[in-house]
């Protein structure tokens, strides 16, 4: 099971549709300060069901929609899709490839889709339960957050263990 593809439209600084094709192994994302690298990691967290806007560096959920720049107008919605290879059947669905999409409108309403069928947030969370990809998961480490893995609070370390159990 691995991440095959990602499509971003209107999420933070990605005003134009952007597609990233991934393969197994190590993919490095490089670029100058402020170019949009951490926005990609925020987009992945967001599709997987992240509800806390503060951990996406915003104040209200609509902050993730492209807000416009000096030259470009703001957009009306944001949409991100992850395509995951499921040929080993790790995810509990009978497809060799599963796509998960999240969409948000200026009204604040969020939509979730699995393989282009609308579903609830709960369905997305259940799909990824126990894979380490969940909200408390250890598999997405945000910028500046590596130190908090060894935080001096013993309960935090315990939570990390429970997620991995």
């Amino acid at each position, binding site marked *: 099971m*691995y991440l095959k593809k990602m499509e971003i439209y209107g999420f933070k600084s990605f*005003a134009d549709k952007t597609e990233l094709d991934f393969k197994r192994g190590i993919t490095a994302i490089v*670029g100058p300060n402020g*170019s949009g690298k951490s926005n990609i*990691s925020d987009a992945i967290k967001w599709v997987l069901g992240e509800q806390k806007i503060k951990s996406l560096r915003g104040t209200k959920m609509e902050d993730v929609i492209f807000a416009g720049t000096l030259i470009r107008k703001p957009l009306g919605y944001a949409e991100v899709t992850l395509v995951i290879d499921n040929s080993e059947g790790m995810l509990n669905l009978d497809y060799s490839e599963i796509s998960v999409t999240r969409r948000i409108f200026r009204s604040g309403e969020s939509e979730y889709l699995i393989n282009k069928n609308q579903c609830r947030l709960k369905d997305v969370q259940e799909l990824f339960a126990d894979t380490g990809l969940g909200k408390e998961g250890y598999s997405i480490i945000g*910028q500046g957050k590596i130190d908090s893995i*060894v935080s001096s609070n013993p309960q935090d370390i315990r939570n990390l263990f429970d997620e991995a159990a």
Partner: protein
Amino acid sequence: IQRQFVEQFELIQTKFNETFSMLFNGGSAGLIILDNEDIMETGIEIVAQPPGKKLKSITLLSGGEKALTAIALLFSIISIKPAPFCVLDEIDAALDDSNVDRFAGFLSMITKDNQFITITHRKGTMEIADRMFGITMGKDGVSKMLSVQISDIMKEAN
């Protein structure tokens, strides 16, 4: 349930010590269960002993030592229970050049069972990547993606 936790704990503890001494080129590290009576609720403390130093709590470590210890713990958890993919956002920022190289070497070793997407500014990490995406910000304030060849970036970095 209790037995499962203790088994998992021991697996991670052994792996953590192994990974730590590979990343630090020596030394050892451990995990301490604070309350043996109440396994289901107990907190866990981390102790680390970089080569040549005394065993200490992690608050006394330096910035780079702390980051490398956290990386050792993360990699040991991932080795015991692989995640479908991992996104790492500049986790190498506090490391000096020789620790970046050790980190990168370890990453390429464990990538057989895991997919890694790593955001970085460090040459040592770029060198071990299988492929690279370059992100730039256009004059219009919109992010664009270029698929860069690893050789282009390396040439520039030198």
